[in-house]
């Protein structure tokens, strides 16, 4: 009896893990550069940096994740969080794609790529609207 309960629990956990990892959509980074964060928080450490237009697999979030402003994603082998406002359904119009040779000629180093991605985490964005 104990053995079958144990087996059932293992199956349940396995199923849940599988459900959490399931891809529910593909979105694209819409800023010049961006980071996949270790936690759903703007100042959390970066797991990897990606460039504008990079496809991001959106996964079912872990049960512990509740912030709708952040999406749980997979980029390559890395799984982490990206703010929803930085992701688009369609591939965005990227500066790097429009002017590739010009952008490459700038020879940005890794430090600069990191900071460029970080910049968007620190901006406070707003727009005045007609009331």
């Amino acid at each position, binding site marked *: 009896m104990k053995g079958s309960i144990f087996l059932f629990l293992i199956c349940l956990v396995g199923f849940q893990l599988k459900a959490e990892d399931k891809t529910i959509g593909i979105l694209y980074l819409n800023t010049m550069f961006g980071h996949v964060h270790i936690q759903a928080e703007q100042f959390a450490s970066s797991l990897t940096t990606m460039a504008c237009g990079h496809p991001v697999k959106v996964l079912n979030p872990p049960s512990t994740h509740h912030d709708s402003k952040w999406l749980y994603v997979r980029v390559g082998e890395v799984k982490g969080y990206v703010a929803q406002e930085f992701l688009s359904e369609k591939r965005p119009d990227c500066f790097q794609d*429009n002017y590739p040779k*010009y952008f490459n000629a700038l020879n940005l180093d890794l430090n600069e790529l990191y*900071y460029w991605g970080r*910049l968007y985490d*620190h901006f406070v*964005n*707003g*727009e005045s*609207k*007609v009331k």
Partner: protein
Amino acid sequence: MKNLWIFLIIFSAWSQNKTQQEKEIESINFNELKTILKDDFLAPTVEEKKGAVQEIKKERKTKRIEKYSYPEEKDFWSFISEFWLVKNAALLSWDFKKPDYGLRNAVESLFETLGLYQVKFRILPLNTPTLTHFSLPADNNEYIFLMSVPFMRALDLSKSEIALLVLEDYFRQKLGYFNANLKVEGMNKIWGANFYDKKIDLSHVDELLKAYSSIAFEKGYNFQQQYEVTKKMDQLLKSNPVLWNKYFQLLSKIEKLVKSNMVYESYNKIYPSPEMQIKWLSPKEKIL
């Protein structure tokens, strides 16, 4: 010698032997084929296909050439402003953990109260007193504002006072003073130009980055520009006495700070000067 003779005989025999393909080509009467093709009406199809291939080749070349374009002006300012922020990340110290100061709502609310609608903005808090408050150009009716947290703390600014400083910076940008002070010539020749088969010229990037730093840290704005900005603020805020008084008090606060705190003594070089702004705003005394 005997071997040489054998080799020569074999070689001459081999060279006389033609391959199957060569024989086939010789046996084909191309003129006759041409006539057949013509009769089959395949010649126009061949021409059509040739044309399509040429078109594809042309398109490919155009796309290849397009990759060597300098940015258009409409895409340029956000890029170069962000690049300057990235290059000066350590100096400006913007990569730091901070609470939500409620700046977004404060600025949106002020702009909406004053009827300034659909102004998109991005505010970057700085953890340095080196640059107190500043605005940078961006694309698509967007503005980038920089705001020093130590400066806000030193003045003990309220959210609405910060929003008023942002409004001042908004006018500086709106009136085109930053771009006017850049003084980097030849940008009109760069925007949208192409450098295919030429050496790329990135001197304008270096010049612009230097000019950005020069305005932000050394030269700032001149008296005339400050006067125009102050008058613009005066005109807009006059309809709202509470805000006008707040702005006046804010300038008084800044004046006291720059006179008493060495850290901010260069403020007058960038924004000449709070003292003059107060004079410009004050009602003229009547001489009897």
